């Protein structure tokens, strides 16, 4: 990718620096705003948000019902929403039904609750194969599902964003909402893993 047909592909770090310089010297972009946006997605908007949603749903049946009924409104109750999460649908995994999320056309992902997507989610192998052989792909990722488990793959082809409400692991019945939060992983909320008891 050179953009000027000269053949040599320059390193992306160098081209990014050039891009930033060209935009900032004309006042089109504020480097401090760039810093703030990076910090936002490195520290504030990540899978911890989704983990809080899941832990609330596990401990509050009324909240769980609202979350499955209208995900966007329910995460809004906890203060979550925004870019790339205008319309969130939450689907529940159970011992017999398993949902897993992908975006075959690009890498759509519910940023407000899970942050920016991890590298494996953006990888062509994941995008190409999850809609073709999900049981095999999940097994390669370390999740072996029984033959009696019905798999539904959610291919995010519109602005609807999908999040999985994982099964609450056995043995956590006495744990509080706060204690449950750190158990909930990003991978479980995409549907490529289960939540393990501590």
């Amino acid at each position: 990718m050179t953009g000027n047909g000269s053949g040599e592909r320059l390193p992306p770090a160098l081209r990014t620096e050039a891009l930033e310089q060209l935009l900032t010297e004309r006042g089109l972009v504020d480097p401090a705003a760039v810093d703030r946006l990076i910090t936002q997605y490195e520290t504030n908007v990540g899978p911890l948000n989704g983990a809080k949603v899941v832990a609330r749903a596990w401990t509050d049946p009324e909240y769980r019902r609202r979350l499955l009924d209208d995900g966007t409104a329910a995460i809004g109750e906890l203060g979550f929403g925004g870019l790339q999460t205008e319309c969130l649908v939450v689907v529940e995994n159970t011992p017999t039904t398993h949902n897993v999320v992908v975006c075959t056309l690009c890498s759509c992902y519910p940023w407000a609750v899970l942050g920016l997507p991890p590298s494996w989610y953006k990888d062509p192998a994941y995008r190409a194969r999850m809609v073709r052989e999900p049981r095999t792909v999940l097994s390669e990722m370390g999740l072996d599902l029984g033959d009696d488990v019905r798999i539904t793959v959610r291919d995010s082809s519109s602005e609807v964003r999908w999040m999985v409400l994982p099964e609450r692991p056995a043995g956590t019945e006495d744990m509080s909402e706060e204690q449950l939060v750190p158990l909930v992983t990003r991978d479980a909320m995409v549907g490529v893993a289960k939540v393990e008891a501590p």
Partner: protein
Amino acid sequence: MDGGDDVDGIADMGGTAGWGPVHPPRAGEPVFAEPWQGRAFALGLYSIRVAGWNVDAFRHATERLDRSAYLDDGYYGRWLNSTELVLTESAILAPGAIDARARNLRGEHVEEPPIPEPARPGYLPSAEGSLRTVDVPPAFAVGERVRAKDMSPPGHTRLPRYARGHTGVVEVVQPAAVLPDTNAHFLGENPQHVYSVRFDSRELWGATAEPFAVTLDLFESYLEKIP
């Protein structure tokens, strides 16, 4: 930047072969593995605004990258290359401006192209985001069998190749939204109802497929009634 002008290029990956094994998650993966990735991410988001573009047009820019521009530097590499396309097509930057500046940054002395006269599309959204209200009722009902049209539009679309011509069942009527196919080309928002449609794996891939289902969120004009 001379990729094909439609979604049937490399971006439409669902069901394609030859990618090898998936990469299992690694614990503690940083959000941005290298500092330039975070900067490219943020600069891309701001550039969409500077250019007067929208998220659909940005996605279409990504779809028009050639294979190398799409793959070689990963997700943020394609993000950076899409951003360059947004900025050159809106004439915020001249073609070659980024590479010329990059060469000068590493000590070469190359002439940089002059700043062009911006050519923003002059196309404003009717509201924030992509959700809209639609006056007409949904054409399809939950539980109805529908077919994804076997269409191959010349520009942007969000109907993946692998679903075209196949039959599924409407599972949910989702909130109506701006149609990416026209919005990406600054030709109007044309909001439509959106349907989560469930397809059986054997309908998509044949009798030997693993048993499972796929749902896609499809705009009303992508679907047709079963006669």
